[in-house]
């Protein structure tokens, strides 16, 4: 037996192969806990339905917000739901980080010949994202048809790029807020707070004035989670410079969140017992 080293280089393919193996096993085992699966299903419906009811109640009273009518707002809403899906699917284990750190179980992720961030995230597939995906796609189609937006190959590509870029912000925000667990005892609170903010990504950033618009654009970048990328897709709206910056800033923000998370992981394993 070769005892000395890994023979092949650990490229993207290696990680993808491992990833799909672990994830498919996780989904399989999730399915086998029926009660859990069923209640999760109802939870997804309740979560999304209550969001819609709240949205509907507001628009029953107010026909438009800041020049955005019901259908355009619905588009933003649907967009933000879909953009959240990757964070829910693939980065859900962030929610367990505080627990893993408090109990000391986190150290186990440091001993495998794998990237720690990758190994940690690969362990859980967040099935709850399915609810957002179904509701989001359904609503997007409804809004798309209602707004009589054109459909072409180019537009679909644009939509996918926009969704992908927006999802990077969703993921990055979750990574960053979870990473606080490495330094403070109550990182879960930070996660809950940022999770709540994220719900407001479905409103146009123009409602915020002055300094807060800057904050919600660059510091807690909820403006990129639906508003800026959507401007390009909606016929009635004009894209701005920041719309085209979304993919680049998204990548930078994601990379930053990864670095902070890793720094936290190293910091933790250095001091924890």
């Amino acid at each position, binding site marked *: 037996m070769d005892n000395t080293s890994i023979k092949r280089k650990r490229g993207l393919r290696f990680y993808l192969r491992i990833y799909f193996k672990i994830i498919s096993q996780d989904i399989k085992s999730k399915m086998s806990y029926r009660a*859990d699966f069923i209640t999760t299903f109802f*939870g997804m419906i309740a979560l999304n339905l209550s969001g819609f009811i709240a949205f509907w109640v507001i628009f029953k009273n107010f*026909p438009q917000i*800041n020049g955005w009518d019901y259908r355009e707002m619905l588009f933003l809403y649907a967009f933000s739901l879909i953009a959240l899906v990757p964070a829910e699917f693939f980065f859900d284990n962030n929610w367990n980080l505080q627990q893993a750190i408090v109990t000391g179980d986190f150290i186990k992720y440091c001993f495998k010949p794998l990237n720690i961030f990758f190994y940690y995230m690969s362990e859980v597939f967040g099935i709850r994202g399915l609810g957002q995906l179904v509701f989001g796609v359904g609503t997007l189609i409804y809004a798309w048809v209602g707004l009589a937006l054109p459909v072409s190959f180019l537009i679909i590509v644009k939509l996918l790029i926009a969704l992908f870029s927006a999802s990077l912000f969703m993921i990055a925000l979750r990574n960053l807020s979870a990473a606080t667990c490495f330094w403070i*005892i109550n990182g879960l609170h930070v996660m809950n707070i940022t999770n709540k903010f994220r719900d407001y990504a479905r409103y146009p950033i123009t*409602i915020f004035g002055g300094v807060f618009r800057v904050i919600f654009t660059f510091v807690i970048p909820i403006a990129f989670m639906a508003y800026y990328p959507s401007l390009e897709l909606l016929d009635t709206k004009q894209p701005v410079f920041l719309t085209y910056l979304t993919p680049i800033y998204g990548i930078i923000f994601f990379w930053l969140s990864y670095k902070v998370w890793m720094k936290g992981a190293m910091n933790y394993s250095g001091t924890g017992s």
Partner: protein
Amino acid sequence: MKKYLALIRSGMVEALVYRTSFVLKIVGNLIYIIIIYYLWKAIFQSSGTGTVAGMTFPQTMVYLVLASSLFAVMEVYLVWGTHNAMQSGQIVSQLIKPVGYRAYNYCPFFGAMIMDFIITFIPTFILVYFLSGGYFDLGINLLWFIISIIIAVNISLSIDYFVSCIVLYTQSVWGLNIVKETIVMLFGGAAIPLAFFPEPLKTIVSYMPFQAIYNAPMMQLLGEAAPQKRLGMLLVQLLWAVVVYAASELFWRRAVKVVTVNGG
């Protein structure tokens, strides 16, 4: 009585240990206030009229900020706690405590809530009072408000208790907890004032126990009503408190057999 006080005290002390969580709650509250301020300002500005569904912009703001602050105070992790106690088997040692499972869990929550109320709710309350330019009265309505909150806390805990019973059967928690949370938040009136709800949803919601948790105390604080009407509202709340308490207690007695029979 002494042991209950000791448990309440333990909750208060424990709440103070996690000082960072208070700071975070306050910061979170502040950012939340900013967001909903801008959002509802835009909403009201876009509508063109000063009053929608009988509520003005400042009224809506005060309502939402205080309701969400109350939500943060009343939020407890009883459902998750029961689930974890069940998984780890600690539930057995909690069941044999001389104070009963409900009291054993409630008392520390009460303690934590008292601390939360003092440290997060009262400053928010004062801030909102001055920011809104003394929008609401600070008179006898405060007394009604406080009594109403105390009843609301009990309803909220009983609902948590009820859901915890279901968890004993299903042994799964996320879905159930989120169903409970969204229903309480939406139909309790913590997300949007119930006044905005269109008919017939509004009428339906008014016959549910959830409105007694956030909407009722807020109406006691902000509404202008005769004492008889206030008393009426309080009695409805009280009725719900008794009903939900009884329902959860009866359910618990059945559900706990899952633990005693299966051995946790």
